[in-house]
């Protein structure tokens, strides 16, 4: 295989992997020496310098990876920030809703209902003091139980948790 095709293969490999890929792994996969991989890397690095390229190749330790060029960061932020933010808000709202109506509840139980990891959402809800930890469940692993705080009830204009139960059954 000529150098150009090897460069294509390396680009494809690095593209698919979200993580850095070891130079030795690449060499083994393409049946070439590490020196040839480094050779490709040097040429690619130059090629990526073109203005028409939005990504670049870099080496961390003995690994290679592709990443976006920093000068395009503002567009990425503009396009994706609203999406990330709305995802975050949705996750937080859903998690809070589940805790509100199912408290006290463990993280696993919440994840079972939402179907996704809620670690981040729990953290941000705790930071905003909308939920807090309240003891542990007497079961294997003794998982932490979460409940809503008084501030949270207050925010939603609720006098006590009984009021939540009252509305839930309606």
């Amino acid at each position, binding site marked *: 295989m000529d150098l150009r095709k090897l460069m294509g293969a390396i680009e*494809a490999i690095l593209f698919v992997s*979200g993580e850095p890929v070891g130079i030795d792994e690449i060499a083994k996969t393409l049946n070439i020496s590490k020196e040839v991989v480094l050779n490709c890397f040097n040429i690619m690095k130059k090629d990526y310098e073109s203005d028409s390229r939005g990504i670049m190749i870099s080496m961390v330790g003995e690994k290679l990876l592709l990443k976006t060029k920093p000068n395009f960061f503002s567009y990425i932020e503009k396009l994706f*920030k609203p999406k990330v*933010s709305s995802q*975050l808000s949705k996750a937080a709202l859903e998690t809070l809703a*589940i805790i*509100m109506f199912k408290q006290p509840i463990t993280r696993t139980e919440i994840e079972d209902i939402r*179907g996704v990891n809620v670690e981040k959402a729990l953290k941000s809800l705790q930071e905003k003091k909308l939920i807090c930890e309240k003891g542990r469940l007497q079961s294997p692993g003794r998982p932490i139980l979460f409940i809503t705080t008084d501030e949270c009830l207050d925010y939603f204009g609720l006098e006590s948790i009984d*009021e939540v139960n*009252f509305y839930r059954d309606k």
Partner: protein
Amino acid sequence: MALNVKLDAFEGPFDLLFHLIEKNQIDIYDIPIAELTEQYIAYLYEIEEKQLDLASEFLVMASTLLCIKSQMLLPQKKDNSVQLELAASEDDDPRGELVNKLIEYKKYKDIAAVLQLKEKNQSKVFKRPPQDLSYLCNNEEFSLTGVTFADLKSCYLSILKKKNRDKRIHPVSKDPFPLIKKVREVYNILLTYKKNVYFSQLLKKTRKTKLEIIVTFLAILELEKMNKILASQERPFEDIIVEIKGGS
């Protein structure tokens, strides 16, 4: 006639008919219906002998073929005008509907083949896993502004609904008011008051649901049975007076 192909290989009666048509190099616009019917039915017999489950659709097609065959054997209604007769014989070909359906089916069979090819090609190309962009927002950066308790409740209900749809099972909600808990609660209230308490007072604290009212009543019956309290009523439908035994 070699009929050693399994029925599983066919996607339905149309598919099987096409197999026979192609094998015999039949002109689809002039199908020798008697011959095709014979082959089709012979095929079904062989399948049956192998004791395979014969889908009813294949039998329906067999009867359709037989019906067309018999229609073609019957003399056509004669019209007075020769021209009309010629025109009519084109339109009234009993095979017409079947041919149209076969052509329509063939169209989608071909498209399916294109799709299969495309699918195969796509299985060799890969996307990139989406980059984790959570760093774009701080963790606290979510907003509950304008979110009301009603929003929270409808959010909760829609999660439950989605979950039920996904799993097609109903969640068994845990009993919100276990009787034993209520018994303790009522007894504690009585202990603190240390005097007669009206049943309505036990419910006063917050607005109660029907279920909670019932459970509270059951708690009183339970405490009565446990010989812990004395319940009395001056008249039917009057408020129940609850008195703790051994209290002042």
